[in-house]
């Protein structure tokens, strides 16, 4: 078998192994979904009326793409925890002694978490439909948005791989993961229109990958999409999202691989 095919088939084996734990520990997925639903309820019903959207539009339709994006960013925590757990339980070492493709341990993790998070996103979208969120454009735009979410999920998982290999315990992985994504998802256009933020935070919120992806989804799906200034992120959110993904992958994938190699030090 050629090196690449081997890397692929081993990656699939590892991903399959990771995914088997989902039905074995259903609480994992259930609470991930409940958490997102709570966010929807909190913001849609508690703050929804109090936050006026410039240019009008339904707050719930504005909010839901952001909630999906928040879930996309959580992939970083999921992956970090899975990685740390495998390192600490000696499984990574165990696999490293096998004649398998070593890349499979990282790519398999990123792949399984991509599938897992895609499943969670599907459940969330269905819940979104129930509270009034709609895609107002076409099937192609919907698929483009979904593809974009998966792309960013994948990049987030590589950040998670890197975090997971750098922290001593699952608890720390959890904390560091949230430390990464909370500022990103809150200093953004997810919950409030960016113009309500202090002016010095506005550029941050504008360029933040979470905002850019959210804006891209709103644009693609025809959901309310208020933006402060015109500028690159406002005008080309899809493009900027793809650029962000490339940058994040280019930085964090090699970092993760380097930490992985350092295991044998």
């Amino acid at each position, binding site marked *: *078998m050629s090196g690449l095919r081997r890397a692929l088939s*081993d990656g699939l*084996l590892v991903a399959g*192994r990771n995914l*088997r*734990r989902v039905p*074995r*520990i259903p609480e994992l997925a259930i609470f991930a979904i409940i958490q997102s639903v709570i966010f929807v309820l909190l913001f849609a019903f508690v703050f929804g009326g109090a936050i006026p959207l410039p240019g009008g539009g339904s707050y719930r339709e504005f909010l839901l793409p952001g909630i999906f994006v928040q879930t996309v960013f959580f992939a970083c925590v999921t992956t970090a925890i899975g990685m740390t757990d495998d390192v600490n*339980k*000696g*499984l990574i*070492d*165990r*696999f*490293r*002694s*096998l*004649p*398998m493709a070593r890349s499979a341990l990282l790519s398999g993790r990123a792949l399984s978490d991509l599938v897992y998070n895609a499943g969670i996103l599907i459940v969330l979208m269905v819940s979104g439909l129930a509270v009034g969120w709609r895609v107002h454009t076409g099937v192609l735009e919907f698929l483009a948005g979904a593809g974009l979410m998966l792309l960013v999920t994948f990049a987030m998982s590589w950040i998670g791989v890197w975090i997971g290999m750098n922290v001593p315990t699952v608890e720390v992985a959890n904390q560091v993961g949230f430390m990464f994504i909370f500022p990103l998802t809150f200093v953004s256009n997810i919950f409030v229109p960016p113009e309500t933020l202090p002016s010095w935070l506005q550029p941050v919120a504008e360029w933040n990958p979470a905002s850019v992806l959210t804006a891209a989804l709103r644009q693609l799906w025809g959901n309310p999409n208020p933006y402060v200034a015109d500028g690159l992120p406002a005008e080309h959110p899809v493009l900027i999202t793809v650029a962000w993904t490339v940058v994040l992958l280019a930085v964090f994938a090699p970092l993760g691989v380097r930490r992985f190699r350092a*295991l*044998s*030090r």
Partner: protein
Amino acid sequence: MDAVVAEGLVKTYTTRAGTVRALDGLDLVVPEGAVLGLLGPNGAGKTTTVRILATLLRPDGGRATVAGHDVVAEAQAVRASIGLSGQYAAVDENLTGEENLVLFGRLYRLSKADAHARARELLEQFALTAAARRVVKTYSGGMRRRLDLACALTGRPRLLFLDEPTTGLDPRSRNALWDVIRDRVRQGATVLLTTQYLEEADALATSIAVVDHGTIIARGTADELKAQIGGERIEVVVHDPAALPRAREILARDAGDDCRVDDRARRIVVPAHGGVLRLMQILRDLEAAAIALDDVGLRRPTLDDVFLTLTGHAAEDGGNGAGAGNADGGAP
């Protein structure tokens, strides 16, 4: 050809509290088809050695080849010929026993059908068939250990590295495992196993290497080592602490220097040159001296006896934990 050759292995760990020289020029040779028992106390460097040979850890100095391949430069070729079972069972808790074995089989490049057949075979061999469909989380410690060992065998490796394979196993499982290992050896496998029990090394190994503070301090067959340390021991526990010196005199009569007295336990240990006859002689002498005994017996030599004879000190915990520093004055 030699299946394993290690020359001058050095490994230093760096921790916040300082550095630990875990291996200090360790040399090792395991001929093809042999079983080498790496015998040593806690912290001697057994696990470190196994991890280097299994390509999990890079040595800081020295070199090693396994199945003819360099463990650093040709690591992937090494991995293709070995099966490793580490000191702590590392199997996926969220998979069933069977799923674990099939996964390992597939990663060892068996076809799907072969991986399943091999899994069934190993479950049978390790008495896990009844638990095959249960999630490993529900396994007992010994069951996990057995599954872990079975995983190491899925690829039918030519070389087996087993780090304290019988720790945590009950006597029956231990004997069963010994049989499995012997069976593998009959089929041509080479085995390197670590243990803290002389008895285990004796039961399995064709030769033994005693490791202490990261170097090999003795090597030979079990018989050679036992001859060197004087075979069985006579152990008596006197009733009255005041009688210890007198008892010691009697026991040490022809034991020479090799007489150990533990004041707190009121125990005296001497080599049993002459076996039962010598024991009876000692008992008669003690009776004549009216020294009351709480316990008396002949026992096999232990790791402690090996160390006392070879190094002059008991097998101490070499695992100088954080802050304790290197008691042996190793490199800082």
